[in-house]
Each structure stands twice: as C-alpha cells, then as structure tokens.
C-alpha cells in the first residue's frame, strides 16, 4: 500500500481434522435421544479434504445457479435482494490534515512537508469478480497525484517533480497529471478449503497490516514505519498457494506458500535473475475467550538490477548485462493480535538480513565507499479499546526501527534507531467512515547525529477521515 509519507515514513498443512464429531450425540439430552436418531450416525460438517464419499449427495440440484434459482423462485428473485455478484466495484479513500513540528533547518524538512497541510491520501478502487466454478479475481488500483510534487534530494538541493502538461481540452492550459499504481491484480482458484491457487500480483502474506492495508481498517493514521519500509516486499508477482485446516471447532491453521519474481526494479513483469523468491507463512487462529491470531512468515529471495550494454563483436553485436546491484535477503516476520470485547492488542516484528553479492555491491550514493551488508529490524505494539459509543477507540502505539544509515550520505553507515510513539483516537461513527486524530513523537538514536535529520526529536499532529465506498 501506499500510505502517504508521514512522520513514520521519515522515521499470514495438511493437518485437516474433522470439524465436528459424531460423538456430540453423546452430549444430547435424554429427551432428544430418540431411537431412530441414535441408530443413525449424525452427519456433520467436514472439511472438504475429508468429505465422506460414501455419503451420496441428497441434494439433486447441484448445478443450480443463482440465476436459475431466481427463475424458479419467480416473483421474488434472490439476485434482486442484493447487488449482482458478477463484478463488484468498491474501494476506499482518505483525506486529512497534518502538521509536523521540526527544528528549523532540520534535514527532515527535505522529506516532509512541515507546514500544516490538508491532503488527499489514498484513493483505491477495487474490481472484484466472482467468476464461477471456484474462480474469482481482484484488481486494486490506487489513483495518485504522484509523481507530481515528488521531491528529489540531490547535490543541487531539493527539487519537486512537475508533471505539468498542456490540456488540449482547455485551451492548452497547464494541468498537473497524476498516475495509477496497481496495488494488486490476481486471479484465484479455490480448489478446497485446504488449497487455493492465486496467480498474479499479490500482497505479500506477512504480518497484519501489509495485507490489511486499507486506511479505514488501519487504526492509526499511517501504518507503522516498519511496514512502510518493506523489510519484506509489499507485493510480489507469482504464484501463491494458500489454505486452511480446521484443527478443531475453535482452532484454524492457515498457510501460504508463494513463489515469485522476488524483489526487483521491474518485478511486476520481469525477473532479471531467474532466481525465484520463496515466501512461506503459517497462521493460527483461535476463537474462544476472544479471538487470538498468531502468524509467522519468511521470505527468501535475490534482488538483481542490471544494465544492458550493446557491444560490437566482430560482425555481430552482443548484449552485456553488467550487474548494477544484487543482494540476497532473508526476512522473518511475526505477528500477534488479540481481540476480546472492545480490547484490541496487536503487534508485529520484522527482521530482514541483506547481503550483497560480490559483483552486486553498490557504492553508497555520493561517496567512495561500498554499501555494507545490513540487518534491519523493527516492530510495534498497539493497544486500544473500542467503545460502543460512536465506535470510539483510544489507542496508543510504540514502534522502533533499527537499520544502517543509507540516506544521509554525508554520514557513515552506522546504525540508526528510530522510536515513534503515538496517542490517538479512532472512531467509526458509521460502518463506512473512520475518523482519526493522532499525536506523534519521534525520538532518534544515531551516531554522529549532528547535522543529521535525526539530530532532534520530531513531533506531529495528524488527522484523517477515511471511508469505504
């Protein structure tokens, strides 16, 4: 996803078990234990993989579609009860205001628009298709004003990208154009509860808020920095297998296993090294005294960026592909969430190790030293309580991120640690609208911080209205 840059920016097998057991009959009260019934084992719901083939389907109209059903039901068509399920268009958006409090001259001003600012954030549209026969698709696009206004920090200072274009429909007056980001585009076949196959571009199944990325559903104004930094790739292009095993009435084990192009400069349509990345995730959900969710994910892949140089070789030409940058990465993520009543506790932790190959270690931008290998880690905890009244949830978050300095090239690549605290109120006065007000404090720990953007604490106030439509 695509939360707007903010202070943080600166700173989810086979163990299928019968769901319900015939033994529950033993628990039936005497007055209900009739001879006919007890002589007949109860047929209970089974996970698909363990469905009993000996039980003949007693429902004859297995191929009945909703349209068929509608025609049979006559005057009260079922399809008329709800919007058609073929193609569904919906989405979410957010708008807000923020003010950053930065020290005069702070380098953070190069990345953040400090002055109090209204803004339109995300505008994401979903196209969801139920294709029948177990097939469905989801396309999500984000409309954005970018790259207009995107800042590039270079030797010549900070420059804003301009996308001014002459609008031929309006006497060629200048118009600032935006762009479209394809958040995800996939098709999925659900073979059973235990196996679904998804092909295309999908959000990496790790943690909580990487997939659950809509601003109406995220409790704070922006996602924690550790998610936005993409210690695991936000999305990948490839094949994703997933499924669930119902271990008991209250316990579900889920898994995801993906193979993809991995991270890369054009990962959506080209793998520059044929080295496929692997993603694996296990998650456990328990529904009892509250809902407990535990997840663990791992990603293993190689990033490759290369150039193509055409060279003459005798009477022919050959293409040389010198490697510009290449590294192997192994990342782990853990997540936990517990909900009971209005209480909401949530945490994620991510660890990413990056090791450059011999030929793919780049120079640090603007310096004469090589980029070192890096171990990046971070996490956050969130606690909140949602009241019935207006759906108000006061919440607090604490997060930390630790990584080597790579953006301030005048400093050595020493370890920077960022801690960000937030207190806020999230309210959902109606089902589709979320209001947020939040204060942030960012504290930084860095060697040689003098003159750095991390020399002084940063503060911010942020407000947001997010809505689903």
């Amino acid at each position, binding site marked *: 996803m695509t939360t707007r840059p903010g202070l943080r920016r600166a700173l989810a097998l086979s163990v299928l078990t019968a769901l319900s057991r*015939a033994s*529950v009959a033993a628990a039936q*009260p005497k007055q209900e234990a009739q001879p006919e019934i007890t002589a007949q084992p109860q047929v209970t719901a*089974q996970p*698909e993989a363990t469905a009993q083939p000996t039980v003949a389907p007693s*429902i004859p109209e297995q191929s009945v579609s909703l349209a068929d059903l509608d025609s049979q039901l006559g005057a009260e068509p*079922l399809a008329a009860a709800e919007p058609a399920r073929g193609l569904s268009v919906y989405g979410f958006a957010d708008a807000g205001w923020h003010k950053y409090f930065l020290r005069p001259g702070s380098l953070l001003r190069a990345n953040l628009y400090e002055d109090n600012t209204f803004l339109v954030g995300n505008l994401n549209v979903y196209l969801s298709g139920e294709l029948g026969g177990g097939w469905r698709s989801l396309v999500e696009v984000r409309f954005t004003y970018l790259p207009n206004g995107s800042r590039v920090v270079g030797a010549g200072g900070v420059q804003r990208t301009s996308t001014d274009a002459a609008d031929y429909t309006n006497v060629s007056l200048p118009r600032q154009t935006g762009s479209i980001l394809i958040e995800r585009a996939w098709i999925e076949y659900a073979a059973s509860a235990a196996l679904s196959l998804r092909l295309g571009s999908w959000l990496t199944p790790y943690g909580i808020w990487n997939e659950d990325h809509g601003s109406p*559903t995220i409790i704070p104004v922006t996602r924690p920095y550790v998610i936005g930094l993409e210690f695991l790739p936000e999305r990948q292009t490839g094949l994703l297998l997933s499924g669930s095993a119902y271990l008991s009435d209250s316990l579900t084990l889920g898994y995801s296993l993906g193979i993809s192009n991995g991270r890369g400069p054009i990962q959506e349509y080209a793998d520059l090294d044929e080295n496929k990345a692997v993603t694996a995730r296990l998650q456990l959900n328990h529904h009892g005294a509250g809902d407990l969710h535990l997840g663990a994910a791992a990603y293993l892949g190689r990033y490759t960026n290369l150039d193509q140089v055409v060279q003459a070789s005798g009477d022919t030409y050959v293409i040389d592909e010198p490697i510009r940058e290449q590294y192997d990465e192994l990342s782990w993520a853990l997540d936990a969430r517990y909900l009971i009543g209005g209480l909401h506790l949530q945490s994620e932790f991510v660890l990413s190790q990056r090791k450059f190959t011999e030929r793919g270690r780049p120079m640090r931008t603007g310096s004469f030293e090589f980029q070192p290998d890096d171990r990046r880690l971070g996490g956050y905890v969130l606690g909140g309580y949602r009241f019935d009244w207006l759906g108000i949830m006061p919440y607090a978050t604490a997060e930390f991120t630790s990584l080597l300095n790579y953006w301030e090239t005048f400093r050595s690549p020493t370890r920077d640690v960022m801690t960000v605290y937030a207190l806020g109120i999230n309210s959902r006065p109606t089902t589709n609208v979320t209001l947020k007000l939040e204060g942030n404090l960012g504290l930084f720990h860095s060697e040689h911080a003098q003159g750095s953007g991390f020399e002084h604490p940063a503060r911010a106030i942020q407000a947001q209205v997010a809505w689903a439509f």
Partner: protein
Amino acid sequence: MKRRVFLGASAAAATHWLWPESAGASSALVLVPIVAAGSPVTDISLGTLRRVFTSQPVSGPGGVSFVGFNQPAGARERELFDRVVLGMGPEEAARYWVDQRIRGGVRPPRSVPNVALLRQVVVRYPGAIGYVALSDLDASVRPVTINGAGPAAPGYPLR
C-alpha cells in the same frame, strides 16, 4: 468410517419431536439452523456455523460446499445469530465485513429479505444453510441441532 444417513422420517415428524416446543413457541426468540429437508445434515457445530457465516470454505457431506444465507440486516433473528455465532453486535459485524472486503474481497453471505423466501432458497440451493425463528419452521426444511443440542436442551446457544 462409513456413515449412514437418516432419511426415513419426514421432516415434519422430526421437527415435532426434535423440537417439541415448536408447537407452542414462546415469545422469546429462539433460532434454529435449517437445511433442505432432504439434506443428510442433522447436526452442525457452532464453530462450523461461524466459519460458514464468515464465508470460509467449508464442505458438507458429499463434498457440497456449505453456503450460508442470512436474514436481512436489522432483523432480530440476524442480530441474535450474529451475536451468538459470530460474537459480534450489528455495528461490529458491519465493520467486520467492510474490513474483510477491503482486505481481500471476501464477501458476506447473501441476505434474503424474508423468511418464506429464505426457506425456499434453503430447499433449492445446494449446500444452503439458513436460520429461522423456531416459530417459522415448516415441513419444507430440516432443523439442525447445534453440537447435538436442540432448543429444548439446556445451554442451547441460539436463544
């Protein structure tokens, strides 16, 4: 293990002795899950109901996927069902489905505008599971026990 299926008794007769109070239901709302009268399903666990009505893929006998059909939002039956089975009040359930949709396109079970139509849908749609007030039962559908318990049992959840 080979399972045998109880198909002999009529749905109406089964209804009578499985659900003796149905002949004189009290005003207190008591819900019963229903399937087609010819369905082999006689019992379902609360956990399976929760999975079906949160649109998780669950199959019944013969490999037919269960398909949940809700009563309309705002109905007393819907509110009680969501509260007991999903553990959510109306607002929370509504938020849940908004969040699910944004997360990945998972959609809630269809809601059917009235009980008469709901019974017809359950009879005709393969794998359909619905729920009605005890007083709304008729011979076209089969009431299903929950974890082996009917409405007369102490601790029956859907009341």
